[in-house]
């Protein structure tokens, strides 16, 4: 029995849970904590999959959908230049790099190198905090600058080709094709990439129906256009809001992922402090706690791979 006792001592300093694990023979040759982390991540994967599949179903159900390279074309410090997907690519890199530094922290843990663990975990935390800051900027820009909310989506897509009307209701030479996206501006706010709403011009808009546009009670300017092709050729129509579900799906899904990143950063911080205090040296199990938070952190990166795919790339 002497051998069993040493095995117990070695593996179960912090796990006194089940008999199976205390019996010296670990199911799947993994510790209780690690195995349960895997199963937690599996369940979390189903939650995210549910969200992303509902996004897909609603996108399929809608005749038009905001084009991601039109919606996500802004970046901080870049003014009004059009940079489709560049900013989210930088966000992805931040998560990838922080995933790599996390692997390094786990490796240093296996070597029982305390300073290495703390150093690489610190870099991981910085990567996570950087990602959260980027997301905060992205959300601020969407909510404050572009007026998107959970129930309102000013990003629309034309389903017909047409030409915008001038302020006195005449057909202008500003034409567009079916499939082109637009962002409905609010009166008094000039939008990047929208030549029509120059700063001086936008201030002149007034509420109600006009030959060239319609302004609703919230101040959104619906520009009028004449259809130039298709069965409705010659009819005058006006721009309308895009599918409503887009805002809700965007904020809930990226918000849920951002919340995972945030909790990850908090746990990483706690575990880094514990590691620095020498707690895991005393446990003599190769910094298993760092390995477990590492699994979680890689999962956050893994989820981002699919959020990035579904929201930004497709």
């Amino acid at each position: 029995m002497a051998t069993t006792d040493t095995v117990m001592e070695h593996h179960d300093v912090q796990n006194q849970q089940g008999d199976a694990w205390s019996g010296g023979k670990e199911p799947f040759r993994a510790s209780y904590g690690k195995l349960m982390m895997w199963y937690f991540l599996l369940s979390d994967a189903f939650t995210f999959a549910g969200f992303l599949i509902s996004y897909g179903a609603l996108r399929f159900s809608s005749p038009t959908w905001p084009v991601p390279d039109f919606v996500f074309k802004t970046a901080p410090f870049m003014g009004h230049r059009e940079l489709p997907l560049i900013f989210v690519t930088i966000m992805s890199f931040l998560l990838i790099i922080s995933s790599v530094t996390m692997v390094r922290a786990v490796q240093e843990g296996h070597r029982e190198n305390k300073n290495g663990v703390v150093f690489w975990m610190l870099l991981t935390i910085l990567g996570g905090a950087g990602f959260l800051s980027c997301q905060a900027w992205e959300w601020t820009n969407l909510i404050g600058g572009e007026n998107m909310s959970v129930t309102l989506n000013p990003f629309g897509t034309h389903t017909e080709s047409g030409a915008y009307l001038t302020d006195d209701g005449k057909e202008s030479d500003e034409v567009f094709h079916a499939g082109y996206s637009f962002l409905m501006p609010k009166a008094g706010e000039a939008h990047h990439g929208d030549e029509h709403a120059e700063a001086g011009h936008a201030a002149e808009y007034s509420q109600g129906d006009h030959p060239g546009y319609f302004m609703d009670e919230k101040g959104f300017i619906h520009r009028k256009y004449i259809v130039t092709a298709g069965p409705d050729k010659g009819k005058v129509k006006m721009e309308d809001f895009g599918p409503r579900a887009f805002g809700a799906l965007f904020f809930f899904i990226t918000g849920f992922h951002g919340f995972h990143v945030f909790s990850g950063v908090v746990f990483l911080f706690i575990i880094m402090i514990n590691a620095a205090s020498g707690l895991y040296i005393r446990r003599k199990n190769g910094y298993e706690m760092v390995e477990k938070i590492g699994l979680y952190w890689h999962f956050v990166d893994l989820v981002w791979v699919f959020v990035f795919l579904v929201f930004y790339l497709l």
Partner: protein
Amino acid sequence: MGHLSYEQAKKVVYKGLVILAAVTLIEVFFSLLGKGHIVESFKFITWLHYLVGLLIIGLSLYKAHFIIYEFMHMKYEVKGLAMSVLLPTALLIWAIIAFFQEGNSWKHRREQIKEKNELPADGQDGQQGMRSGDTYPLELKS
């Protein structure tokens, strides 16, 4: 644990960084190509959109595989653990097929409702109230 030496494992990590970064860049490039940002005229080629979409999905699955097997060390776990975690996700294949089908069907319904709403009210010949079975007396709220 680690079936690799420390030096080997370190190399794998930095190789991983290069692979993941490169695959991400390729994905973004393909996505912008399909949307007509690199060659303007590509915006309206429908089959290209599908091809690019499939490529990007494939690359993302490769990234996911790499993260799980290398970074999360699934490669070095026993087979039972790997299967008990990975096999349940196969259920998602059904979920994707079922719900995308469902989404498509909603779209058809909406189009049908829109078409019927645009028809002139069928007042002539006292035909009011005659609706075919697949039409629903619903109004779409914007």
